[in-house]
């Protein structure tokens, strides 16, 4: 059984191919990393998976999320998938949050949507607090009544994660979720993501240009170069013995920074 199946996906804009013949599968509970540099098509692939491609981009092939074909699906169908089947966390939490709305109300919105979907009645205040506690935010009472600019970048990313979790998705798509964060905050957020994905039995599609970051949270990777998958397989195997010259160059570069930090005497 697969949760997300991308089959022969090609994305073009103004006749230019941006992603070419990309195929991969993600089973429930599985963790996959999409690795590539800027312009490799990794973020577009993530957007395509939840039906959020910009109108100027044409897609061919097939993307199945849950048991629904995403490409060409009407907005109503896509809306049912978003949140419930797949939810997304992006690089910059500031752009994901409404600057004029208090945190508590923003987090309550997807919770209310879920309750509506399930026909359940819930205690919103209690659920918001529980969700903020789940993402290990200190002092939820204060944060609920704060505006996004009043909390730190790391706290904002925790809020974005909390909102993604609100609809209990089966798949979490994280697009460079720690790239804008300081290194110590990044370490905390990676630990949090790792724990939440495990505890909630979610699948994870983790998109990043940063190899050691990817290695911390996924089991399998697909390496993209200019929209084409050049290599795919288990993280351990690929990072230990990359077969494609492009992967080799990425791994060699990452290891050089590691070696510099080791400062061998």
């Amino acid at each position: 059984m697969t949760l997300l199946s991308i089959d022969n996906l090609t994305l073009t804009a103004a006749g230019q191919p941006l992603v070419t013949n990309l195929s991969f599968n993600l089973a429930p509970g599985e963790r996959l990393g999409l690795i590539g540099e800027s312009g490799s098509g990794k973020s577009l692939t993530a957007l395509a998976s939840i039906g959020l491609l910009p109108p100027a981009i044409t897609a061919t092939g097939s993307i199945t999320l849950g048991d629904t074909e995403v490409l060409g699906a009407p907005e109503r169908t896509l809306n049912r998938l978003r949140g419930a089947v797949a939810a997304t966390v992006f690089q910059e939490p500031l752009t994901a949050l409404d600057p004029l709305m208090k945190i508590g109300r923003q987090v309550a919105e997807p919770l209310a949507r879920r309750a509506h979907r399930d026909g359940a009645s819930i205690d919103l205040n209690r659920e918001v607090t529980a969700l903020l506690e789940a993402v290990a935010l200190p002092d939820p009472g204060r944060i609920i009544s704060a505006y996004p600019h009043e909390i730190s970048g790391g706290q904002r990313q925790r809020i974005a994660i909390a909102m993604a979790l609100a609809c209990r998705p089966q798949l979490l798509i994280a697009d460079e979720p720690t790239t804008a964060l300081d290194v110590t905050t990044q370490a905390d957020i990676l630990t949090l993501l790792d724990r939440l994905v495990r505890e909630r039995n979610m699948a994870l599609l983790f998109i990043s240009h940063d190899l050691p970051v990817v290695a911390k949270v996924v089991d399998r990777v697909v390496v993209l170069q200019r929209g084409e998958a050049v290599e795919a397989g288990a993280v351990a195997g690929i990072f230990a013995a990359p077969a494609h010259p492009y992967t080799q160059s990425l791994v060699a570069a990452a290891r050089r920074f590691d070696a510099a930090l080791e400062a061998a005497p």
Partner: protein
Amino acid sequence: MSLLRVENVSFAYGRRPTLTDVSLTLDPGRSLGLVGESGSGKTTLLRLILGLERPVSGRILVDGTPVEPRNAAAMRAYRRTVQAVFQDPYSSLDPRQPVRRIVSEPLRALKIEGDHTALVRGALSGVGLDPDILDRLPHEFSGGQRQRIAIARAIVARPRLLLADEAVSALDLGTRIRIIELFQTLATQMTLVFVSHDLGAVAALCDELAILEKGRLVEAGPTRKILQSPQHPYTQQLLGSVPRMPA
């Protein structure tokens, strides 16, 4: 004698202190990595060294002369000594100016005599670019190439001190390595202060490290020594947080 001497420098934006009693020195020909997270004051310190801001207390000396932003004549002379490269190679180059005008700008501003075309061609070669790109526009180049153009502009007037503020942070991994290699080459010709949150890049490039936390200098010394046995808990935390490749 030290080329750069920061003496008990404090700075505040309004009432909020951004730097508190920072002191450090850098000998000519050495490269210094200023490392810290957001809010550490590293960019503020760089702006003070550039003379874009004035310390609230303390002073900065370059080549034995105090940096004095209010003394216009002294600052003009100072610009021959110090140049800077910034993070974003897309916003730091005027899109309407050809490479020739961009790179020769310091030569005109500093009224440097001589054959500007030859100096610009020399600077372009020095950063690994084809000197024949003189009449091309910035949009024709990749991010890494643009950063090389920005570096060519910074070195064309042969400064003694080159300041780089997150100059490789916006670049892809492969490009980042190549620009760090370029800085390594330049560091043999001039003194370099390299501001970055990226410990790996700084470790690969700099002879010395200064770690800032919330405006205070918590640790400074030779890079190798600090990496091998970081003394301050914050330095230890920073080093421990850098994700590494699996063994």
